[in-house]
C-alpha cells in the first residue's frame, strides 16, 4: 500500500500529462476529464491530486512508497507529527498500505487543506498542494494522494465547471476530470517512476472492481470519513483556515481514504474510481454539505473539508455532472470527438455538452447532416430497435445482446400465451404496453444502451450533436442551453410513454427525427446525456418544460404508447389467432397434426378444430368465455387497483423526500408523472428519486392494464374452457349437426354433467381468482354435486368412461374420415365385440377420453377393467390380445 502512496508520485506525472492535457484543458477541464476519465483514469486522478502536492517531492516519495518500508517510514514521520496511534497503524500497515496510506493521506489532506485555497483550477490546486504537502510530509501527502486524492483531485480540476453546477455536479465532474488527467499522468508516472509495481497492481484490481462492481455503500463511506477525520483531525484543524481549498484537499484525502478501505483493490488502483468513486462521490456531496456546515470541526475539515471543496469546484464547473450510472453507461458508448485522443469510456454528457457548446455546434452540424434519416427511415429504424430498461447495474450485468434478445423473446412468448387476443384495441394495446415495459424493466441490459447509442448506420452518436440543439434553440440563453436544450427537445419528443422510455434509453432519437427536425436526433443524444442528471436541469428550466410536458403527455399518452408498443416486436408478436381461413388445406392439416389431432376431413371442420385448439392453447377469453369475460375483466381491474395502491405509496414517499431535497424535483415530479414512466433504475439516489416517482406513477397509471395482463394469465386457466370442454362444445355442435337426434340425447347429458367436475377441481387448485370470479352458470350448481360425487369415484368414473366412449366417435375427426373403418373408435370396437386391450383403452381414457367429458381424474387399468366387465365388454391385457 505504501506503493500506493508511492503512486502519489503520480503527482509528478500529472505535470507531464498536463502538457498533453493542456489542449483538453484549453477547451475545458471538464472535457479533458471526461474523455480521460474512462476506467483507468481514477488511479491516475488520485495521482493527479497527489501530484501537485508531491511534485517537488515526487522522486523521494515515490521511492519510499514503492517500497513498503518506505511507506512505513513516511507514516512514521506523520506519526511523529500527528497521532501516535495513526503512526503505529501506518507502520504496521506498510504492507497493508492503503488504509494506512489513506490515513496518511488524510493527514496529507489536512496539509492539503491549507493548500486547497487555489481551488479554482485543478492546475492551481496542484501547484498549491505540492507546496503544502511538501511542507508537512512528502511521503504522507503522496500516499494520501495516491489513494484518495486521485479522484478528488481530478474533481478539483474539474471543479472549474463543476463549481458552477450544484455539488452533485461537482462529484461527477471530479470523477471525470480525475480520470482524464490521470490517464496521461499515470502513464508518464509509470514510465518515469519506479512505481510501476503499484500501477500494475492497480490495474488488476481495477479490472476486478469493474467486474464486481456494485453500488457503493453510503454508510461505510461516511464512517470511513469519520475515521479518517479522527486521524487527520490535528492536521485538519490546521487546515481549517484554508477554507474551500483546504476542504477540497482534505476531501480528496478523505474520500481516498474512504475508498481505499472499502475498495482498496478497486479504487486505490485508480481504475475502479471510474465507477465506484463517482458513486461514492455522490455521497460525499452530502457529506461535503455536512462538512461545509461542520467545517469548523478539525476532523471534518481534514477529511470532509476536501469534499466541500470539491463540490464548490464542481458547482462552478458543471451543474449536471452527476456521474450517474446511466451517464457512465451512456458515456461508454458515446465516443468523444475525434479530437479526444483517449478512447476512454467515460465521456460524461456534461462535458460533451460544454464542449459541444463551443465546438460541437460546428461538429454537430456536420455529423447531424450525415446521420439524419428521413422520417420514414427513422421510424423504421426506431421500430427495429430493441429497448431494454433497467438499472445500470442490471444493464452492466447483462450478458451478450444475444442472450438478452433471447430472454426478451422468451418473455414475450410467455406473455403472448397469457394475452387475450385483441379483445379491445385500446385495452390490449395498453396491456401490451404495460407488459412490455414491465418486461423491459425486468430485463435490463447493456445491449439496449449499445443500440441506443448508435445511429441508424451503427455509428456511435456523438455528443457534438448537442451543439446542433443549441443552434436550433439558439434563442435561448446560453447558460440554460444545456439544460434547456435537453429538456425541451425531450419534451417535444416525449409526448407519450414511448418518449419517456426512450428518454431513459437513448433510443428515442430515431423517433424524434421523423417527428420534427433532423436536429432532434441530436436533441435525443442530449437527452441521453442529460437524462442522468436531470435534477440540475430541472431546477433551471424545469418550469417551462414541465408545462410543455404536462400538456403533451395527456395527448400522447393514449396514442403514442400504443404506437410504441406496436412498434416493438413484442406487440407485434402479441397472440392473435391465426387466420385459419386463409390457410391452405395442407397447412390446416399440418396445423391440426401439430395439435396432435388426426387429420380432419372437412376444411371447415379443420378450421373449427384449429380455432378451438388455438383458443384452448392460448387461452383466449374472447370466444369460448364470452359470458365470463366481462366479469373477469372487471375483476381484473379491481385487483389491479389494490396492487396499484401498494405500489404507488412508497414511490410517493420517495417523491416527497426528493422534493424536499431539491426544489427542482417537484417540477420534475410533475413531469415524470405525466410523461416519464420508464426511467432507469440505475440513477443515483437523488436522480432516481424523481424518476422513481415517475415510475411509480407511471406504473400506477398503467398498472391497471398491466395487472390485467397478469391476471389474465392466472385467470386464463379457469376462464378458458378446458380442452375437454372445448372439445365437448365442439362435439356437441358437431353431433347436433351431423347425428341429429341420436347425438343430442347423449350430448345433452354430457353437457350438463361435464362442466361440473372440471370447475370444481380447478377451483380447488386455483387460488383466489377463482373464488372471486363468478363461475359460469352451469358449473356452480353442479360443482357441489360433483364434489360429492367424487367420493363415489368408481361409480362416477365408470359413468364418465361410458360417456367418454360414447363421445369419442362423434368428436374424433375419424368419424368422417377414412380412419373410422380401418381404425374404429373405441365405441365401435366395443360394438363389434373386439376385445378391448385394457392398457390401450386406459391410456386413451387418460389422455383423451376422460377429457371429453371434463373428467380430470385418471383411471387405472383395474378400474377400467371393472368397467369393461360390468359392461360385459370383452377386455384383456395386452399380452393376451394376440389370442
Amino acid at each position, binding site marked *: 500500500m505504501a506503493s500506493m502512496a508511492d503512486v502519489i508520485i503520480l503527482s509528478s506525472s500529472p505535470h507531464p500529462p498536463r502538457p498533453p492535457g493542456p489542449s483538453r484543458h484549453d477547451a475545458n477541464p471538464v472535457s479533458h476529464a471526461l474523455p480521460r476519465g474512462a476506467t483507468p483514469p481514477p488511479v491516475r486522478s488520485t495521482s493527479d491530486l497527489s501530484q501537485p502536492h508531491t511534485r517537488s517531492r515526487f522522486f523521494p516519495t515515490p521511492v519510499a512508497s514503492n517500497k513498503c518500508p518506505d511507506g512505513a517510514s513516511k507514516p512514521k514521520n506523520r506519526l511523529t507529527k500527528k497521532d501516535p496511534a495513526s503512526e503505529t497503524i501506518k507502520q504496521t500497515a506498510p504492507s497493508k498500505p492503503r488504509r494506512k496510506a489513506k490515513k496518511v493521506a488524510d493527514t496529507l489532506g489536512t496539509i492539503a487543506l491549507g493548500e486547497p485555497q487555489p481551488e479554482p483550477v485543478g492546475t492551481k490546486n496542484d501547484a498549491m498542494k505540492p507546496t503544502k504537502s511538501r511542507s508537512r510530509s512528502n511521503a504522507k501527502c503522496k500516499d494520501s494522494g495516491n489513494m484518495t486524492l486521485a479522484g478528488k483531485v481530478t474533481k478539483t480540476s474539474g471543479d472549474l465547471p463543476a463549481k458552477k453546477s450544484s455539488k452533485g455536479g461537482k462529484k461527477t465532474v471530479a470523477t471525470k476530470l480525475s480520470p482524464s488527467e490521470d490517464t496521461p499522468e499515470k502513464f508518464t508516472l509509470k514510465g518515469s517512476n519506479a512505481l510501476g509495481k503499484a500501477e500494475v497492481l492497480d490495474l488488476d484490481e481495477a479490472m476486478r472492481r469493474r467486474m464486481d462492481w456494485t453500488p457503493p455503500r453510503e454508510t461505510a463511506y461516511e464512517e470511513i470519513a469519520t475515521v479518517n477525520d479522527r486521524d487527520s483531525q490535528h492536521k485538519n484543524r490546521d487546515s481549517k483556515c484554508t477554507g474551500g481549498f483546504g476542504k477540497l484537499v482534505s476531501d480528496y484525502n478523505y474520500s481516498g481514504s474512504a475508498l481505499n478501505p472499502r475498495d482498496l483493490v478497486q479504487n486505490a488502483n485508480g481504475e475502479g474510481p471510474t465507477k465506484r468513486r463517482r458513486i461514492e462521490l455522490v455521497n460525499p456531496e452530502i457529506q461535503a454539505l455536512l462538512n461545509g456546515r461542520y467545517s469548523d470541526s478539525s476532523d471534518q475539515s481534514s477529511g470532509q473539508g476536501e469534499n466541500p471543496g470539491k463540490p464548490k469546484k464542481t458547482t462552478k464547473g458543471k451543474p449536471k455532472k452527476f456521474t450517474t450510472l446511466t451517464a457512465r453507461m451512456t458515456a461508454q458508448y458515446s465516443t468523444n470527438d475525434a479530437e479526444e485522443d483517449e478512447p476512454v469510456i467515460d465521456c460524461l454528457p456534461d462535458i460533451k455538452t460544454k464542449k459541444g457548446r463551443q465546438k460541437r455546434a460546428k461538429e454537430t452540424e456536420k455529423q447531424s447532416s450525415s446521420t439524419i434519416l428521413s422520417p420514414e427511415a427513422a421510424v423504421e429504424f426506431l421500430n427495429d430497435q430493441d429497448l431494454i430498461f433497467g438499472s445500470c447495474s442490471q444493464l452492466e450485468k447483462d450478458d451478450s445482446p444475444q442472450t438478452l434478445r433471447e430472454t426478451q423473446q422468451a418473455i414475450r412468448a410467455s406473455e403472448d400465451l397469457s394475452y387475450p387476443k385483441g379483445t379491445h384495441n385500446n385495452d390490449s394495446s395498453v396491456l401490451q404496453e404495460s407488459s412490455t415495459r414491465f418486461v423491459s424493466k425486468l430485463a435490463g441490459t447493456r445491449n439496449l444502451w449499445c443500440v441506443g447509442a448508435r445511429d441508424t448506420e451503427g455509428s456511435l452518436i456523438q455528443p457534438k450533436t448537442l451543439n446542433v440543439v443549441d443552434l436550433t434553440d439558439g434563442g435561448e440563453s446560453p447558460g440554460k442551453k444545456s439544460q434547456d436544450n435537453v429538456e425541451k427537445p425531450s419534451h417535444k419528443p416525449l409526448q407519450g410513454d414511448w418518449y419517456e422510455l426512450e428518454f431513459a434509453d437513448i433510443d428515442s432519437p430515431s423517433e424524434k427525427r421523423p417527428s420534427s427536425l433532423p436536429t432532434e436526433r441530436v436533441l435525443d443524444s442530449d437527452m441521453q446525456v442529460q437524462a442522468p442528471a436531470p435534477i440540475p436541469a430541472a431546477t433551471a428550466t424545469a418550469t417551462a418544460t414541465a408545462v410543455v410536458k404536462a400538456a403533451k403527455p395527456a395527448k400522447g399518452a393514449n396514442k403514442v404508447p400504443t404506437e410504441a408498443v406496436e412498434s416493438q416486436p413484442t406487440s407485434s408478436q402479441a397472440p392473435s389467432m391465426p387466420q385459419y381461413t386463409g390457410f391452405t388445406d395442407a397447412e390446416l392439416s399440418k396445423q391440426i397434426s401439430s395439435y396432435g389431432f388426426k387429420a380432419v376431413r372437412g376444411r371447415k371442420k379443420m378450421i373449427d378444430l384449429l380455432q378451438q385448439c388455438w383458443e384452448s392453447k392460448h387461452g383466449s377469453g374472447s370466444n369460448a368465455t364470452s359470458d365470463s369475460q366481462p366479469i373477469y375483466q372487471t375483476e381484473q381491474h379491481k385487483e389491479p387497483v389494490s396492487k396499484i395502491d401498494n405500489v404507488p405509496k412508497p414511490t410517493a414517499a420517495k417523491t416527497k423526500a426528493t422534493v424536499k431535497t431539491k426544489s427542482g424535483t417537484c417540477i420534475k415530479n410533475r413531469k415524470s408523472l405525466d410523461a416519464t414512466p420508464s426511467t432507469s433504475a440505475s440513477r443515483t439516489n437523488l436522480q432516481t428519486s424523481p424518476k422513481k416517482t415517475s415510475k411509480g406513477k407511471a406504473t400506477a397509471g398503467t398498472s391497471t392494464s398491466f395487472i390485467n395482463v397478469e391476471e389474465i394469465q392466472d385467470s386464463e386457466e379457469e376462464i378458458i374452457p378446458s380442452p375437454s370442454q372445448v372439445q365437448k362444445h365442439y362435439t356437441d355442435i358437431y353431433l347436433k349437426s351431423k347425428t341429429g337426434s341420436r347425438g343430442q340425447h347423449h350430448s345433452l347429458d354430457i353437457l350438463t354433467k361435464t362442466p361440473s367436475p372440471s370447475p370444481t377441481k380447478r377451483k380447488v387448485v386455483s387460488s383466489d381468482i377463482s373464488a372471486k370470479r363468478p363461475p359460469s352458470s352451469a358449473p356452480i350448481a353442479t360443482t357441489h354435486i360433483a364434489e360429492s360425487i367424487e367420493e363415489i369415484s368408481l361409480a362416477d368414473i365408470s359413468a364418465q368412461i361410458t360417456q367418454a366412449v360414447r363421445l369419442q366417435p362423434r368428436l374424433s375427426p375419424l368419424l368422417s374420415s377414412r380412419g373410422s373403418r380401418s381404425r374404429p373408435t373405441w365405441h365401435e370396437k366395443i360394438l363389434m365385440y373386439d376385445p378391448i386391450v385394457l392398457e390401450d383403452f386406459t391410456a386413451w381414457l387418460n389422455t383423451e377420453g376422460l377429457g371429453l367429458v371434463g373428467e380430470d381424474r385418471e383411471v387405472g387399468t383395474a378400474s377400467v377393467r371393472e368397467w369393461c366387465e360390468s359392461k360385459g365388454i*370383452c377386455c*384383456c391385457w395386452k399380452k393376451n390380445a394376440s389370442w
Partner: protein
Amino acid sequence: MEEFEKPKPIPAYYCCYLLRSTVRHASLYIGSTPNPIRRLPQHNGVAKGGAKRTARDKLRPWEMTLVVEGFTSRVGALQFEWAWQHPERSRHLDSDDDLDSKPQAKANANANANAKTGKPKSKPRARTRRSLMAHLEDLHSLLRSTYFSSWPLRVRFFCADVYRVWRAWNDRVDSRLPDKIKVILDGDNIATAPDANQRDEHAPVGNINNLSVDYTRFEDHLEKSMFMLDDPDDLQCTVCKESISPNEEQIVVCPHPNCRGTSHLLCLSTTLLDATNELDLLVPTQGTCPSCGNTVQWVTMMRELSLRNRAEKEARTILRKKEKRVRKESAAMEESSVPRSSSTEPRPLLEEPTQDDLGPNWFEGVDIESDSDFEGRQKHRSIQPPSKLEIVIEDSDWDDAELIE
C-alpha cells in the same frame, strides 16, 4: 389408440365344451375350440393334437356333452374357458349363493367355492375331481356373471343326462339365466333328428358334426351386403338419413334377406340401445331393424360387418366358393328338373334367409334335395375352414395355458 391395426373378424364359431369320458362319466374336461367337429376326434385320438388330459385310452372315447357357443372372440372364449376351469380363482365367479356379487376379492371367491364344494383349495386336483354337477353350477354362475351374461352365448346340450342335471340345478338356484342366453337342446335331448339344413344358430343340429362352424351361415348376408355396398351411391343410413360411404365408415347391413337397410354402426347401435331403455349398455343384443322392422341380432350383423371389413379377402373367397357351390346346386337342380337357374343372381336379396322365421319358399323347396347337397357342403366345410380363416384351427389345451386372470 388402435392397437389392432388388423383386427381379426369375429370368428364364425367358437365354443367352450364340456367333454366327458364315455367310459367313466366322472372324468370331465373343459376345453374350447373354434371347430368342435375337428376337435373331438383329436381328443379321441383319431386325429393328432388331443390334449394330454384326454390322452388316456382308458377314458376314450370322449363325448361333448355340451357346448357353450357364440363367443365373439377367441380371447373371450379362452377367458370363459379359464373361468370355467378355475371357478375358484375366477373373478367372475362367486359362490353360487352369492349370485351376483362378482367383483369380490378372489380370496372370498375361493373361500366360497371351497365352502360350497367342500373340497380343498388345491385347484388342479379340485378341478379334475369336480363333479358334473359342480361344473354345471359353475357354468350357470358364469353365464349369470356380469361379465359373461351380456355376451351372445348359447348353451347346447347334446347329452340328455347332462341336461337333466342342469335342469335340476336350475331348479335349485334362485336366479335364472339371463334371457339372452339360449339353451338349446340337441343331440340326445331331441327325439327326432333336427333339420340338418337349419341355418338358425339356435336350431338343434342333432350332432356335433352338424354344427356350422364356418361362415357359411353368413355368406348370404355377406353376399347381400357386399353387393349392396358395391354401389352405395343411393344408399343412406336408415337412422341419420345421410349418405353412407362403406369404404370409410362402418356400415351395418340388415341381415334380413329382403331388407336393404343400411346404417352407420353408431347410428344403428344408438337407435337400438335407445329402444332398450338401458342407457348404461354400450352394446345392444338385438333390436328392430329400422328399415324392415324385423328383429335383428346384433352379433349377426357384427359378424358380417367384421368379416366384410376386416377380412375382405376371406369374405371374397367365401363368396366365390358359394358361387361354385350354388352353380353346382343349380346344375343339380336343373338336372332334377327343378328350375333354379335364377338362383345365382337374385340370391342376395331373396334367397337363403339367415333366420328361421323367414323361411323363404325357395329354401323349403330345396329342402328335399338338399340332403345330398348338404353332405357335400359338410365335407366342403370341414376341409375348408382352416384355409378360410387363420383362426380356425387353434384349440386351447389348457394344461399349459396361462392364466387369463
